[in-house]
């Protein structure tokens, strides 16, 4: 046994967290998240499953009695379900931003949070994909949207933004899932080598034989780079395509060239807020305060601030253009939004998205985790109402045929199914965080100083 250096001293608690992290510490800190999670975890999981059960019961009523239960009345046929669809697709976007775009920009701080964000992406797209199926009415005919000819030999209409959307969401779900699984492989291998029992067998299988050889890393890092490079334009395209579901129509309030960048910024804004909402309990439940620090939250808050400012600017532009265009229908639609029967929805959106993010200019707010948690929840409420205002309120206030407008109000079935979607999302997320490393092990190690002779850091036993 040739021992060239003395064993390094154990990490001292007085050093700054970034310098006392070692490779071994990171592996064990993240592997312990897979152990017994405590009562708080099961309380959260139980609430999520309860919400999901409520949603399933409402959905069964909807299947039995049809879409009349959703409170639709002419001309409002797109309402809460499409709102939820756009909301959840939007939530998904920040995950890919953090995992792919920040990867290409070489932002070291993303490593501690990107796995959470990426898992959130996959589960949010899974949630979003349910809503078009719920919305179509005869849910058992959902496969009619696939590109195959019907009995008369007709193919789908590729000039329709709804078909673009299907391709965009399908691609997004597939790519974000493989991206998540790809990132997991070295971490599952790291966990495999420190756990025992049935977990060891599970992770031996799912690590796909990963051993960290130079050949494996050579292909893996290159492939990961290309996946990130492909996911970056994808994330920008997906919400643009979602926005064209509306912008390609002529409804005032929908028909705007601003929509693609406006939706992408809003998506990332709500998604970053959701990352904060998820990270705060994850960090607490799994004791990850050493790895996910205030620095990460502050950076997320800055991203939230940036995209929040873009969203605020879009609100101003949208209203200004409606007035400046001189188009009476456009003006009427925006007047209806702000002062019509849905004024409460519009002002919730304006206050939560247009005014609240200004608090993030203050460093004391950005570094206060409780404040960020509260703001993030309000941002998500605001962003849900933004989609509701754009979709349902624009239709309710459609000025072309005012004589035929009936009153519209969301019903208990709508609210129940929406609550169920939150249950569905949080259930998957909590199950994932418990059973797979919710923080990347190898990438957190990458931003640490590697162990070198004479310095003794990184490789401490």
């Amino acid at each position, binding site marked *: 046994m040739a021992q060239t250096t003395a064993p390094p001293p154990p990490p001292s608690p007085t050093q700054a967290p970034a310098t006392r992290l070692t490779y071994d510490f990171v592996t064990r800190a993240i592997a312990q998240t897979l152990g017994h999670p405590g009562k708080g975890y099961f309380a959260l999981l139980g609430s999520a499953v309860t919400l999901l059960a409520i949603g399933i019961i409402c959905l069964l009523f909807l299947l039995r009695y049809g879409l009349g239960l959703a409170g639709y009345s002419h001309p409002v046929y797109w309402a809460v379900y499409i709102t939820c669809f756009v909301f959840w697709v939007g939530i998904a976007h920040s995950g890919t931003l953090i995992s792919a775009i920040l990867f290409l920009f070489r932002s070291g701080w993303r490593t501690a949070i990107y796995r959470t964000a990426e898992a959130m992406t996959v589960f949010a797209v899974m949630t979003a994909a349910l809503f078009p199926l719920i919305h179509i009415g005869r849910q058992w005919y959902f496969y009619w949207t696939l590109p195959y000819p019907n009995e008369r030999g007709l193919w789908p209409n590729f000039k329709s933004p709804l078909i673009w959307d299907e*391709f965009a969401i399908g691609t997004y779900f597939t790519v974000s899932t493989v991206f998540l699984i790809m990132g997991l492989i070295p971490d599952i291998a790291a966990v495999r080598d420190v756990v025992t029992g049935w977990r060891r067998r599970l992770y031996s299988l799912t690590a796909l034989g990963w051993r960290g050889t130079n050949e494996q890393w*050579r292909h893996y890092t290159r492939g990961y780079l290309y996946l990130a490079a492909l996911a970056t334009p994808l994330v920008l395209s997906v919400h643009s395509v979602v926005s064209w579901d509306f912008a390609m129509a002529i409804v005032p309030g929908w028909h705007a060239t601003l929509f693609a960048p406006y939706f992408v910024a809003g998506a990332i804004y709500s998604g970053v807020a959701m990352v904060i909402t998820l990270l705060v309990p994850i960090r607490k439940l799994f004791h990850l305060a050493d790895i996910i620090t205030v620095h990460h939250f502050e950076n997320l808050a800055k991203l939230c601030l940036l995209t929040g400012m873009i969203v605020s600017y879009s609100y101003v532009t949208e209203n200004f253009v409606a007035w400046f265009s001189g188009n009476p229908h456009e003006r009427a639609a925006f007047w209806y939004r702000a002062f019509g029967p849905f004024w409460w929805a519009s002002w919730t959106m304006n206050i939560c998205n247009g005014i609240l993010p200004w608090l993030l200019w203050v460093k004391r707010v950005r570094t206060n985790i409780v404040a960020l948690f509260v703001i993030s929840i309000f941002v998500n409420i605001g962003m849900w109402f933004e989609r509701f205002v754009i979709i349902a309120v624009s239709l309710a206030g459609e000025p072309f045929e005012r004589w035929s407008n009936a009153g519209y109000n969301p019903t208990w079935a709508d609210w129940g199914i929406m609550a169920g979607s939150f249950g569905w999302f949080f259930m998957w997320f909590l199950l994932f965080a418990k059973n797979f490393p919710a923080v990347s092990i190898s990438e957190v190690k990458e931003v640490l100083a590697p*162990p070198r002779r004479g310095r003794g850091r990184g490789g401490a036993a």
Partner: protein
Amino acid sequence: MTALNPVAVLKGIFHPPPTPGVLGVFAHLDATVEAIGRLKAGGYQDCTVYSPIPRHELEDALAQRVSPVRMFTLIGGIAGCAIGAWLTLYMSYDWPIVVGGKPVGSVPPYVVIMFEMTILFGALTTILGILFNALFAARRLGTVAWDPRFTNDKFGIFVPCEPKAAAAVEQLLRASGAEEVRRA
């Protein structure tokens, strides 16, 4: 003639015999890099280096070629774009419906489909490229010595060599700063 015995052939695939050689365990990155340099100078080209994370120092020391995964991505992306174009145009002309005197196959809206298919096929072939190159094509992976600490905090080098050359390799690894050396 064991090669003609199907049971022996299958056994050879699933439980291949271990490759003889020497495994060095390193606690430090710079010691690992030094050992790679000495091994290369000593004519040992075929070693396997283990690390918990990818490091450019190791890549540079090994002077590896760029991974062929990029060809998978390129071919997949181009194929996806072509499939997107074929899908939309073929399906439009297969049952032509003229709406408002517009062309049956109008390319601008189809660009969206072509773009999404480029990304989809590019990403899936990238994954196939990684799996094919890193996992399936690594035929020797199960036969070379390995240590579970390599996914945690240790670096490792496996040098395949005949038993009579092992002593020299052991000496070389120790001199470079290996904290543990063993024969496999």
